[in-house]
């Protein structure tokens, strides 16, 4: 179990070491240990979000909700500007550039009918928030990323099926090959795998 193939990979080509676990308590415990041992560049590869694992790893709360809030506000602003400019206004920017809307007179109703502008403003707020949520996640996760050392190793394909992996990266300041190997083995993994860059 402790025979790591790391000696076949040159040190500068080593991405990190991965320990395989078969159960959720196993990976949860391992993540807690890795966090308290002071490793920074480590990750857990899991087939589904294990409840509380992010907190056990010491992952900070994502800024995504804040981005989504501003995305929504942008949508709201754009929707209001769009409706007011196109339906209610006619003016010149610096007396030079004419901005001409199309002022429909419908039964003498006000041109700046705020109530009538609510549905579109609402929809645009939701649309921009949702776009920010999805593309913000992808951006923060640095996806799409079609090449990654953990995708390269055939054994780690089970991370999308039924196995859980703790990966400690070689770029971690505390990374000493023998120490990390011993540390991972102390967690009772199924196996420890060396990952090539």
């Amino acid at each position: 179990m402790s025979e790591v193939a790391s000696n076949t990979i040159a040190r500068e080509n080593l991405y990190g070491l991965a320990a395989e676990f078969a159960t959720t308590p196993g990976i949860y415990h391992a993540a807690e240990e890795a966090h308290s041992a002071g490793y920074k560049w480590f990750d857990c590869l899991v087939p589904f979000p294990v409840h509380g694992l992010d907190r056990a790893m010491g992952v900070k709360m994502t800024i995504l909700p804040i981005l989504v809030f501003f995305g929504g506000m942008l949508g709201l602003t754009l929707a209001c500007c769009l409706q007011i400019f196109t339906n209610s206004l006619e003016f010149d920017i610096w007396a030079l550039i004419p901005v001409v809307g199309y002022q429909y007179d419908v039964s003498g109703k006000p041109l700046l009918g705020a109530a009538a502008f609510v549905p579109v403003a609402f929809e645009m707020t939701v649309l921009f928030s949702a776009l920010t949520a999805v593309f913000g996640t992808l951006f923060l996760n640095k996806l799409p990323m079609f090449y990654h050392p953990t995708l390269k190793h055939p054994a780690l394909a089970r991370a999308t099926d039924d196995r859980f992996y703790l990966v400690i990266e070689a770029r971690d300041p505390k990374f000493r090959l023998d120490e990390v190997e011993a540390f991972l083995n102390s967690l009772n993994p199924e196996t420890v795998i060396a990952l090539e860059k």
Partner: protein
Amino acid sequence: MTTAPVNKIDNTIEDPENRPQLILNHTEFSSVTTDILRANESSKAPKSWYFALAISFTMMSMLGAMIGYLIFTGVGVWGNNNPVAWGYPIVNFVFWVGIGHAGTLISAILFLFRQKWRTAINRFAEAMTIFAVICAGTFPGIHIGRVWLAYWLFPIPNQMDMWPQFRSPLLWDVFAVGTYFTVSLLFWYLGMVPDLATMRDRATSKVKQLVYGLLSLGWRGSMRHWHRYERAYLLLAALATPLVLSVHSVVSFDFAVSQLPGWHTTIFPPYFVAGAIFSGFAMVMTLAIPARQLWGLKNFITMRHLENMCKVVLFTGSIVGYAYSMEFFIAWYSGEIYESFTFINRAFGPYGWAYWIMVSCNVLTPQIFWFKKARNNIAIIFTASLLVNVGMWFERFVIVVTSLANDFLPSSWGMYEPTWVDVVTFLGSFGLFMTFFLLFIRFLPILAIAELKSIMPIADPHGHGHSYNEMSGETNAQAELAEEDE
């Protein structure tokens, strides 16, 4: 095609001490993956799939032919006439948008309510939403007459210096349905990314590896990714919830903001939303029952799931029934002669037959789900869900046609009759819907695999077991004794 064994476990029993099992006969993660993807990964689909695809594709081609005929000839090929300018296209539009609503309800609202049973049905309900909205979008698109000017619907600068009229509900619809489609698509795709990665890692051919690899965006199951992903999913659910309520409200404004008797009522937004969820759930059941049979998914879409959906249909069907009676009451109570006439005319006038089809399908049919025997009988559920679909189409027919045909002055009344082109176009839209759906169940993960794993008892990292599936086979004699009605 072989399927996993289905042991006789009755998970519809209400036992306050034990939470019911939601995933039957599975104790390992890997068997869940294999069981769900079995149909996708088998080299050949069942014969019935090819058969259904052939029929659907033919119907879809008919839709294409009808649209071509319409564009080259003009809207005169339809039955739409002067008082009834909306006719079939708008009936079909509202019908299809309504179908879509159940998908979002399941994926967003039930997610916020922590209804774990939703995980087995949300993926294909969301797919259903997207395909239904595509069908819905087709109809107003071709109803505008000059299809090549459809871009006038959008606020795009044009040579006439003209902008859309933002105080019109018809334009709100463009934004509501457009947003709804985009958000549903994003929600569906984001939810599917981890499962596409599973399919990528299990792919046996280069082509599959490449396609699923590209679609899964290089997802590797990193918990740091999952952390943001879960947050995004929650945010999308919270955004989709008011969105889905707003979409059918806006659709109802198309009617309610006008001055027409029978349309100009404040009850329309909630009544339309309830009706939409009602029809959508019926469609989910119509699709789920054959799909679980054909794809061997009875361990995931269990009787309890179907029973829960029956309860939703019963509840929303009763709201719809209440709305019908309240419309009548207000028509009388308002003392408005045109309003009163419209409703009496709906029930007993020339379109009375459509009204009574609507009432019997939508109000009476779901009442059968008060009985547990009916909720546990596949044949009854399937028949009732089909009847509800029929009834909900007639509801839109009644609303659109009767109000327009007989409004104020009898001199401007006119009857409406659909032409063969109308009927074939409508049937063709089912072809479009089913073609997409059949391709989806063959090539994409039909159930949310990662989410299903997370509700299994072994997924709990603390082993407290206050997750689902607590009752194990041997401790629950009740379950063994209970017979399954399937």
